[in-house]
């Protein structure tokens, strides 16, 4: 069976993504973890480009590989006094490993049995990457989802602002001194 260029590229990027994810979760230095996870997000962005969903690819690169990675790095820097401190022992226990393997096996098996779906129709010539179709779907047909995402973001904003707000009362200082 011949493998065309897109599939080959996908295989390479997919393996790279998995390896980056695995390295991120197995690495003992948390800064390395964040760097690897940035690579993981970026390679998934490339996968979306290969799937001819460039809008999603860009979004993945901007939001995940960009914003989320920086946010995580920021958290690491704030929390750890010495940011290159090693984490304690990596506790891999047999039961968890077996459970993860089992779940992975079930899902891989499921992938093999996937029904023979027809591939989606090609995007119209005037809109080669279906971006305007996507926009129409996102904003008109399924505007409800976007509205809900707005509510989620509203509560996140209110909560995060509250938690991060400057706050000094005698009670805090007392606790700190203790």
């Amino acid at each position, binding site marked *: 069976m011949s493998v065309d260029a897109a599939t080959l590229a*996908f295989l390479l990027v997919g393996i790279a993504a998995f390896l980056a994810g695995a390295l991120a979760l197995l690495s003992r230095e948390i800064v390395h973890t964040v760097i690897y996870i940035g690579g993981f997000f970026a390679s998934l962005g490339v996968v979306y480009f290969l799937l001819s969903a460039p809008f999603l690819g860009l979004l993945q690169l901007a939001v995940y590989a960009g914003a989320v990675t920086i946010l995580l790095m920021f958290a690491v820097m704030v929390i750890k006094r010495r940011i290159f401190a090693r984490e304690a022992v990596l506790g891999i226990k047999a039961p968890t490993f077996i459970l993860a393997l089992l779940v992975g096996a079930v899902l891989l098996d499921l992938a093999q049995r996937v029904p023979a779906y027809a591939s989606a129709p090609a995007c119209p010539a005037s809109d080669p990457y279906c971006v305007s179709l996507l926009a129409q779907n996102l904003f008109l047909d399924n505007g409800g989802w976007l509205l809900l995402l707005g509510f989620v973001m509203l509560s996140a904003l209110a909560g995060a602002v509250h938690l991060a707000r400057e706050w000094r009362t005698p009670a805090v200082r007392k606790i700190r001194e203790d």
Partner: protein
Amino acid sequence: MTTIPLVDLLSLSGALFALGLFGVLTRRNFILILISVEVIMNAAILNFVAFSLFSPGPAAGGIPGQSIAVILIGLAATEVAVGLAIVLALNRLRGTLNVAEAIQLKL
């Protein structure tokens, strides 16, 4: 149009799900658990994109999958921001304490 087979896409997302699950169950550090959860979330997003290209739905059936993927990317970023705010609040309260150690969680 894509020529990448659906089986490969689903295999990748399944493997990523298992990887994320493994991370959640083994790591004990807040940031690392959060990253594992993000790996699972990315597997879900990849699934939605994959099924938007191959699915039994109606003719325009592919597009909602991509809409969902867009929404999920936004949702995940929002969630990470809230998590960071919680950690920062704890960090401030604890002062010099090393939060990463204080929050070793027993899941």
